[in-house]
């Protein structure tokens, strides 16, 4: 990717003959000129463009070249020979599912050891798994593969694309669990007392990935269920000055203020149609006090569409639609740790683009086209 971008840049500055040896492929055959010629640009036009940072562009365009967004706005310069996609609907950045096990089910928990900070979720990433096709069809272009919360320290999460097989960020978070999920009747720990002491011991004398978390270089994803666990998690992140997000929102409403003070984001646990009001109230209350929100995806147990379902239900419960869209895109990218790469429609970011029939957080809207790194991967026009 970097190489081709570089070559394109060279082609732009040195029209005509290239200096130096002619590029060859792995068999030694000279690479044809078309491979280094500037790729054709694509221009997407739509009545509404949801940028991903909460702003909206009416009747705007997006120019994509070599998988990267080069222009966004009401007026853009259409490059020569560009393909123009006129979309009758809305466009948003690709959705980002936080805390997911898509395409890696069963591979994100090593139940033999309760603490394994050096385990990396990226090694469980099977890019051609059919889960990713379903995810793309739901408008999800990136997701955070996170180690299971059934271990005290499950390992490191990875941000991956749902098409193209890219690991965008190999070590995105350290997965920590203070929830009852980490307690196991047949191995250590069986108790919160054991869990908290072990975590305190590990973080007091940190090594490896834990040391990176303590230094602030590696954010943590802390799994929580009930209010007592949230309280313990906040005490824990405060003690070690950790950054990152809590995963588990069901009971967070009563602790919205202390969560805000902690600086932690909150990843909403996946929604079901039958979920109680509490889950939604909780997210609405957190958003209101200014806690950064993202949505988790417990696929394949739930269909990837449940990601958007959660956002829509929160809007129904009183969350501003702009905030909900941000939580699925721009804010999710911040929680994932790569806002400079995905989550918004802005110059220089990956061209992960979804064409919608209407507003992404309206459940009546359908996904009509998906592009990842500028490549057409579902529906829409090629």
């Amino acid at each position, binding site marked *: 990717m970097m190489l081709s971008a570089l070559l394109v840049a060279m082609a732009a500055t040195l029209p005509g003959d290239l200096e130096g040896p002619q590029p060859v492929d792995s068999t030694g055959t000279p690479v044809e000129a078309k491979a280094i010629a500037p790729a054709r640009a694509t221009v997407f036009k739509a009545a509404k463009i949801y940028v991903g940072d909460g702003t909206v562009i009416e009747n705007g365009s997006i120019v994509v070249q070599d998988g990267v967004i080069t222009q966004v706005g009401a007026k853009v310069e259409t490059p020569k020979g560009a393909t123009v996609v006129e979309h009758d609907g809305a466009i948003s950045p690709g959705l980002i599912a936080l805390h997911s096990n898509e395409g890696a089910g069963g591979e994100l928990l090593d139940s033999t050891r309760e603490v394994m900070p050096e385990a990396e979720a990226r090694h469980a990433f099977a890019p051609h798994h059919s889960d990713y096709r379903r995810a793309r069809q739901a408008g999800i272009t990136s997701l955070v593969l996170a180690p299971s919360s059934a271990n005290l320290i499950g390992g490191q999460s990875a941000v991956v694309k749902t098409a193209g097989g890219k690991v965008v960020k190999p070590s995105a978070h350290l997965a920590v669990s203070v929830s009852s999920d980490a307690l196991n009747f047949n191995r250590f720990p069986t108790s919160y007392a*054991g869990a908290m002491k072990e975590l305190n011991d590990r973080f007091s004398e940190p090594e490896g990935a834990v040391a990176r978390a303590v230094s602030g270089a590696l954010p943590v994803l802390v799994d929580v269920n009930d209010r007592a666990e949230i309280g313990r998690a906040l005490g824990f992140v405060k003690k070690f000055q950790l950054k990152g997000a809590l995963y588990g929102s069901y009971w967070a409403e009563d602790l919205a203020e202390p969560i805000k003070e902690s600086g932690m984001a909150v990843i909403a646990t996946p929604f079901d149609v039958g979920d109680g009001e509490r889950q939604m109230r909780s997210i609405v209350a957190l958003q209101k006090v200014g806690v950064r929100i993202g949505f988790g995806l417990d696929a394949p147990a739930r269909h990837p569409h449940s990601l958007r379902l959660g956002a829509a239900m929160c809007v129904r419960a009183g969350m501003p639609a702009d905030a909900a869209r941000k939580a699925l895109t721009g804010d999710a990218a911040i929680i994932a740790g790569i806002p400079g790469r995905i989550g918004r429609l802005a110059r220089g970011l990956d061209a992960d683009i979804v064409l919608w029939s209407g507003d992404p957080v309206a459940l009546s809207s359908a996904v009509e086209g998906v592009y990842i790194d500028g490549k057409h991967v579902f529906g829409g026009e090629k």
Partner: protein
Amino acid sequence: MILTAILALAGGATLAPAPQSITIATDVLYTGAGEARENMLVTITDGKISAIGPGRPAGEDSLHVAAITAGMVDLSSRINSGTTSVEETHEVTPQYRVADSLDFYDQSWARQLRHGVTTVVSSPFDNNCIGGLSVALKTGGEPTIEARQVKADVALRGAFGSQPSSKNHPAFGRPTDFYSRRPTTRMGVEWIWRKAFYDALYAEGNEDRAFDGVEQLVAALNGEVPVFAQAWATQDIRTAVYLKEEMAGEGKPNMRLIIDCGAEAWRELDFLVRTKTSVVLPPFPADGRTGDGAFFAGDAAAKLHEAGVPIALSSHNSMLTGGFLGDQAAYARRGGLSFDAALAAVTITPARMIGIADRVGTIEVGKDGDLALWNGTPFELSSKVVGVVLDGELVIDPR
């Protein structure tokens, strides 16, 4: 900054927060530190008792009750998080703190507070021989350990009797889980206790033999932290006392023992007096039988008190076994315990057992502003707690 200082000087005390003060009138005041006195006023300022003196209510709206005692103290409140409060992967886990497992959103805390219990001890669930460190807490306030903790690590908690071995089974064939390697009998439980203490004795003089939890075991042997052990039945109370005497013979005469749930302690008066052991009694059962089939006589509290054994009453946070701590004092009164002894058994004696008597347990100037407000004579079944003050805050208003 300088400007603020000048303003502060100019305005006198205007910038300092006004002291929070509350005064309550009572027909009878039971301070727990002397005679009961009639027509008294108790004032609490900024959470601490600041004045006690004769007086009558200022007006009709003012706080006025029939009787005031200190907020009650329950050493065996049993508010913990059940099996998730004890680390069962080992049978001896002195290094773990129950404080890390408490759920302050549990309704039990508020229920205890409503009934005049302002301080409780939470201990690990008794599925281990030595389960970990207990903590003393207030029953109200912000739902965090920092806000509620009176004192950390007030006791090393453990259990004798059948409970620590109740889930275990011998490892015939291939073990299926870790319960196949723990004690299965009272003998086994006692052996685990002794081994833990002897391991600690050896480790004390030899760093190569140190292990997780040795620090807490040595502190218990040296009497720096009491051993708070569940032992319902005669044989289990004896086991605990024998162990204490054996350790005295090994050069550790200062170990302090508090028996919890000592239902049959009334049968073992000589043992308890001889070893200066304290006893926390379980709630009075409807039919006399308690845990481990122990028989809890109605006059047990009176007998122990007469023999000179320090006693505390407890509620186990249970409405099924006979109600709240105030009611337990009433039952003990019916069994022959004097009023003063009953009052002490739910206030200052338990506070002394775990070393928090400087903060709670009596109504004295300088102590925490924790009060139980009664509508009649305390520990009569016709009276109840109608108001509660916790750290100077009127959390239950009797009006």
